[in-house]
């Protein structure tokens, strides 16, 4: 494996984890999604010509992996302890609890809307979001407004924040 690829993973592991966590609350599926993301990033690493930002490319690949919903039966290599996703309850700070609420609320959105809100929360510009999603910036604008309001009302109604 090329050291450049390892660097890429180390610089973008948060993006990978955030996307995977938005698409599952099950630790096994989370591991499966992460592993498939790594494989797909590796397989298209050589063909990445730098036409877009590295993070844009990572977003595209990982969203594509999660949205095409895997059905994985192969033996798993643990990348995150099975307990990590949920074990924080007892020691959670308020921010961590809020973060869990946000993730739970995101997972209540439609799968395509989760992609929109993830990009919005990570401060991507409409142009970059359009590039990642493959839709127009006007469509991105319409979606962001709709999904943002939806997320807020889910958080308020379900989690009482």
């Amino acid at each position: 494996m090329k050291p450049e690829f390892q660097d890429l993973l180390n610089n973008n592991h948060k993006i990978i984890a955030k996307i995977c966590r938005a698409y599952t609350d099950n630790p096994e599926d989370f591991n499966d999604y992460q592993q498939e993301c790594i494989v797909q990033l590796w397989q298209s690493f050589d063909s990445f010509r730098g036409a877009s930002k590295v993070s844009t490319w990572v977003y595209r690949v990982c969203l594509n992996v999660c949205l095409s919903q895997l059905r994985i039966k192969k033996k798993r290599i643990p990348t995150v302890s099975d307990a990590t996703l949920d074990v924080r309850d007892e020691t959670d700070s308020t921010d961590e609890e809020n973060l869990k609420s946000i993730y739970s609320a995101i997972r209540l959105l439609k799968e395509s809307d989760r992609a929109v809100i993830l990009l919005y929360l990570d401060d991507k510009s409409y142009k970059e979001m359009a590039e990642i999603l493959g839709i127009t910036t006007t469509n991105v604008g319409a979606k962001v407004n709709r999904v943002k309001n939806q997320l807020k009302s889910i958080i308020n109604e379900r989690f009482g924040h």
Partner: protein
Amino acid sequence: MKDLDIKKVWNQDSGENPTGFNADMVEKIIDKGSVNIIQKFVNALKMEMWINLVALTGIGIYMALELKWEVAIFLMVVDVGYFIYYSRLIKKLSEKTIDNSVLKYLQAVYRMINKFIAHYKVANVILALPLFMTGMYFANPNVFSEKYFSQGWFIVLLFGGFALAILLLYWFLHFLYGKKAKKIQQLIVELTNDESLFEGKHK
């Protein structure tokens, strides 16, 4: 929670792997390879291609040894045809599309699932009839005699059984991949629907 608060909390997320991925683990994951749906199709088709090639070549050689040249040549032609067909299909499905935009990728996956289903539908009809006939022949070698074919119940049983086998295989295909195709199609519609709403407002 205000808009700003959500972003503030979100930005404090350290990710589930604060230390990143270690090199050994990444190597193992890469060695294991992909398990996505397209890769499954490619693996299934490769296996199918080699089974067909070995079987047809074997029967072709046997026919040549039996001096049944017409049959042997016919099988070799079919063999080459199969090889070209499978190679092209596998090449098409193996095209790297994962780093396309989300919409383009989903459209590509949708096309590939439909291509795969279509392949089996065709293979189904082409292969099911001779397989069904062969099965009946082994059950009773006299089954294709005039005596049976002149009886209505036999014709109904023959074609009814064949139609049922095809229907069952079609149902199985849709059970395996139809739902997936529908889900992907729904995602494509969802991704593009706000655009059509927006266009509609400005008409």
